[in-house]
């Protein structure tokens, strides 16, 4: 696989940042977009645009077909069993809110327990916090170990007969640690506890197979998967989606509307209220096509090469501290420098065209645990190379110079 060729698909890499070539190491935040996705969106608006599912004229037919074809593509991409299990959302955040709200409304009552982990992103905690307040439910956080890894034993400990759902990340957006999902889901299934997987960081790096994985819900953000902003996917097992009440109310999701009562359509329509982000959905099909053309195995092989190369270099560098040391990890390197705050690191790196993220990465529980209010994070996408790591390390060295350390 030739990375330069792949990089050529992403117009933004023609851009200079502070007169330096862009070294984009912020894909865990949001990935850049290939030309095929950008152009698909323009093409759609210029040639095929109409509202979906509502009118019977030719444009509406085309738009509706393109939209629903993408649902089929996604179904195949994640190997779901039914196309009705694929719901388009605004993002992973909305996906989790939908489940916490709708599943929570129906199945979670006073005293019931929700298991999260200390690694969760705010998106996989705040919606459950609402539910805790609304239903007087209990949230339990599974402890992570000194390497900042999720451990199945800590989850096992927390399970009681009041556990109603386990909501857990696939890959940590701070440590890159890969959760032993299969084991956790098997454990949960044996106790009939449904599992929601926050797959926001998982989907871009790991091949997905919903039927094999066996989780009950899986959420994805398309913008981290080389797709458009403002689009996410919620996968849910049909048996739940059939039973769950709708989430937002509006056009398109009803069966019959009377003054006294309203009945609702079936999934996925039931969960897609109002005019959808059609262009984004249609364009996302190009992300899937690109990923499948390169192959997720090749993508992760290259990403892992770059990751290992980076970790090795950092280990050899005494002034850089790695944050977390999970055995099984992907894409993410979080680090700190003694005496230089991560924000200052990010600013100085930017001067060399290197884009990373600094902060708590929407993981305050984790940052409180490790006693740091912020860390610096470099994250690797399909377009990154070992050269990018070299430039990163040089720029980190420069931080020390600027700070006279």
């Amino acid at each position, binding site marked *: 696989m030739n990375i330069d060729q792949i990089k050529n698909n992403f117009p933004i890499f023609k851009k200079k940042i502070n007169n330096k070539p862009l070294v984009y190491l912020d894909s865990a935040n949001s990935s850049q977009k290939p030309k095929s996705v950008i152009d698909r969106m323009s093409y759609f608006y210029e040639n095929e645009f109409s509202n979906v599912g509502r009118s019977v004229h030719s444009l509406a037919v085309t738009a509706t077909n393109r939209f629903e074809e993408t649902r089929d593509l996604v179904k195949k991409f994640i190997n779901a069993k039914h196309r009705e299990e694929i719901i388009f959302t605004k993002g992973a955040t909305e996906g989790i809110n939908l489940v916490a709200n709708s599943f929570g409304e129906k199945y979670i009552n006073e005293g019931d327990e929700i298991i999260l982990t200390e690694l969760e992103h705010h998106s996989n905690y705040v919606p459950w916090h609402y539910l805790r307040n609304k239903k007087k439910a209990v949230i339990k956080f599974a402890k992570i170990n000194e390497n900042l890894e999720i451990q199945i034993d800590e989850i096992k400990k927390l399970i009681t007969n009041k556990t109603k759902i386990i909501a857990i990340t696939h890959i940590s957006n701070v440590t890159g640690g890969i959760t032993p999902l299969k084991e956790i889901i098997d454990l949960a299934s044996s106790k009939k506890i449904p599992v929601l997987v926050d797959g926001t960081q998982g989907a871009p790096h790991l091949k997905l197979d919903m039927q094999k994985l066996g989780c009950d819900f899986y959420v994805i953000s398309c913008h981290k998967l080389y797709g458009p902003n403002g689009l996410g996917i919620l996968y849910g097992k049909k048996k739940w989606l059939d039973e769950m009440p709708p989430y937002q109310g509006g056009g398109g999701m009803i069966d019959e509307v009377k003054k006294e009562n309203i009945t609702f359509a079936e999934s996925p329509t039931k969960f897609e209220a109002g005019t959808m982000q059609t262009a984004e959905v249609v364009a996302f099909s190009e992300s899937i096509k690109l990923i499948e053309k390169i192959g997720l195995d090749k993508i992760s092989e290259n990403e892992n090469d770059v990751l290992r190369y980076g970790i090795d270099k950092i280990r050899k560098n005494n002034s850089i501290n790695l944050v977390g040391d999970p055995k099984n990890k992907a894409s993410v390197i979080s680090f700190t420098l003694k005496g230089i*705050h991560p924000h*200052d690191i990010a*600013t100085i790196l930017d*001067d060399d065209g290197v884009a990373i993220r600094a*902060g708590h990465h929407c993981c305050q529980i984790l940052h409180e645990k490790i006693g740091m209010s*912020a860390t610096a994070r470099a994250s690797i996408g399909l377009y990154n190379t070992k050269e990018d790591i070299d430039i990163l390390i040089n720029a980190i060295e420069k931080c020390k110079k600027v700070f006279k350390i």
Partner: protein
Amino acid sequence: MELKELYQEIILDHGKNPRNFGKCKDFTSDAKGHNPLCGDKVHIYAQLDKNKKILDLSFEGEGCAISLASASILTDILKGKDFNLAKAITDNFLNLIKENKSITLNSLNEDQKTTLMSLSGVKDFPMRVKCATMAWHTLSSVLEKK
């Protein structure tokens, strides 16, 4: 955008060795500032007297060099000033950073002016403006609380 404009000697010094760090004795008013997007925090303590004077001023906090230096410089410059002057200097400073206006106050000596001006490099780094201004906004709360 010149990095060395942002990380001037004075800033680095105040960042590494913040002045007036900790709770000042007998503080009569305090307030917290927080930037939830990055996690920077500041907590300002002031001992105020009835004659509207800032007798003592200190801070605690964590954050980047800019935010620490900004809080440190603030306490250094405003300690001993009376309210109205502190307020005027604060406004002046925020205008400098946000609106790119120049500092007009001659109540500050040259040394203080230079110190304050050292924070102005932040103007060219929009994402860092909040780091430089948070302490000053928090001080306004402290004075209003009185």
